[in-house]
């Protein structure tokens, strides 16, 4: 009898635990849905003045927003869903390439070849094909649209499937680069994880946020530079800049606020 009570009590606890888990997940989905309904995947260009008005009561951020407005003119927001770095970067980079035929052609060739590199690294072809095809399709569509290139880019990046498939593929390129240079990147990985494990857990899954290591690997793989402006509670009134990889000439500028990346324009 005593045993039975103990057992039924345990079952009750289990049920309570599961419900707790599911409640947390439900709440998280609710928040995600609210973000989805209110924030486009990639927004319109807005004046940096808009950022200042967000922080009228926050002196540290206000002074940094003012500083930022002296260096840049426009901001383009992306949806904060953990994919923002990859989405923001690719959008901004393709936008830039629209005005640079030579670099566009180079990038197209690099993107085209990248699939074979990934297959060589052991990614099963049937799992990467669709993502690679989508990136190539977007590169071509945007490139062939002439004057409408910007509008086409904006349209495709706000279509969930196109937009997400590109994010997946950029994550794979990043993972491939980390694995190719595993010996080097191992030094930056915390905990008892191999580079491969890190890629499986922190790079390849969607919605996982990007850290320095992701940015370094991706920009190295694409042979381009990213400048990230950091806006946080740190000391000073200026937004510090980091270039990835170090010493590169940035072709894309991003604004980082804790947990999120948006696009910046001079």
């Amino acid at each position, binding site marked *: 009898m005593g045993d039975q009570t103990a057992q039924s009590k345990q079952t009750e606890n*289990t049920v309570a635990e599961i419900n707790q888990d599911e409640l947390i997940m439900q709440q998280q989905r609710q928040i995600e849905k609210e973000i989805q309904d209110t924030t486009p995947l990639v927004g319109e260009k807005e004046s940096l003045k808009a950022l200042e008005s967000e922080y009228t009561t926050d002196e540290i951020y206000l002074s940094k927003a003012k500083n930022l407005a002296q260096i840049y003119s426009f901001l383009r927001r992306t949806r904060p869903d953990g994919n923002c770095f990859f989405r923001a970067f690719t959008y901004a980079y393709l936008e830039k390439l629209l005005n640079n035929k030579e670099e566009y052609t180079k990038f197209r060739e690099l993107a085209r070849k990248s699939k074979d590199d990934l297959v060589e690294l052991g990614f099963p072809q*049937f799992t990467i094909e669709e993502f690679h095809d*989508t990136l190539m399709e977007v590169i071509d569509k945007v490139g062939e649209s002439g004057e409408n290139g910007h509008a086409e880019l904006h349209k495709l990046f706000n279509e969930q499937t196109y937009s*997400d498939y590109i994010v997946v593929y950029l*994550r794979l390129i990043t993972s491939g680069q980390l694995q190719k240079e595993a010996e080097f990147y191992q030094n930056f990985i915390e905990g008892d994880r191999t580079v491969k494990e890190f890629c499986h857990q922190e790079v390849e899954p969607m919605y996982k946020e990007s850290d320095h290591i992701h940015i370094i690997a991706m920009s190295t793989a694409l042979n381009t530079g990213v400048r990230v402006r950091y806006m946080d509670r740190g000391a000073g009134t200026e937004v510090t800049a980091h270039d990835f990889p170090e010493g590169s000439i940035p072709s894309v500028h991003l604004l980082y606020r804790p947990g999120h990346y948006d696009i910046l324009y001079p």
Partner: protein
Amino acid sequence: MAGSALRRLIAEYKQLMSNPPEGILAGPSTEENFFEWEALIVGPEGTCFEGGVFPAKLSFPADYPLSPPKMQFTCEMFHPNIYTDGRVCISILHAPGDDPMGYESSSERWSPVQSVEKILLSVVSMLAEPNDESGANVDAAKMWREDRKQFEKIADKLVRKSLGIPA
């Protein structure tokens, strides 16, 4: 969206047909609907589930492979990582973020380059080596830890049942 999911599922099915992993059989339940699969999993050798043939079903979401499928055994199972209704609870089947307790931080996660084959292979390893820290079935986890003999007895009964042999 569903178009790319369908293309991917067809590609995975072809892959599984041409190169089937040992002890695993899987494919769409009907030709009309590629989003519902049935699978047969053979209990791994040298474990208490050895020789059993366990049927399960897999349901794929419209945004597969961005999100993982769900998997549920359709036979009776008793295992720390399988809910009493047959649902399988292992990390590879969880979308990133669906881990409120954080106990799976070090294991394989779902990502779009995973596959049905990888899931089924993970399930075979799960049968061989239960993870008693994530208790989908706490009673089974407790018994696995504290009374292995009794656990093996139950597993043996399930193996016989799956083969239609009287206990």
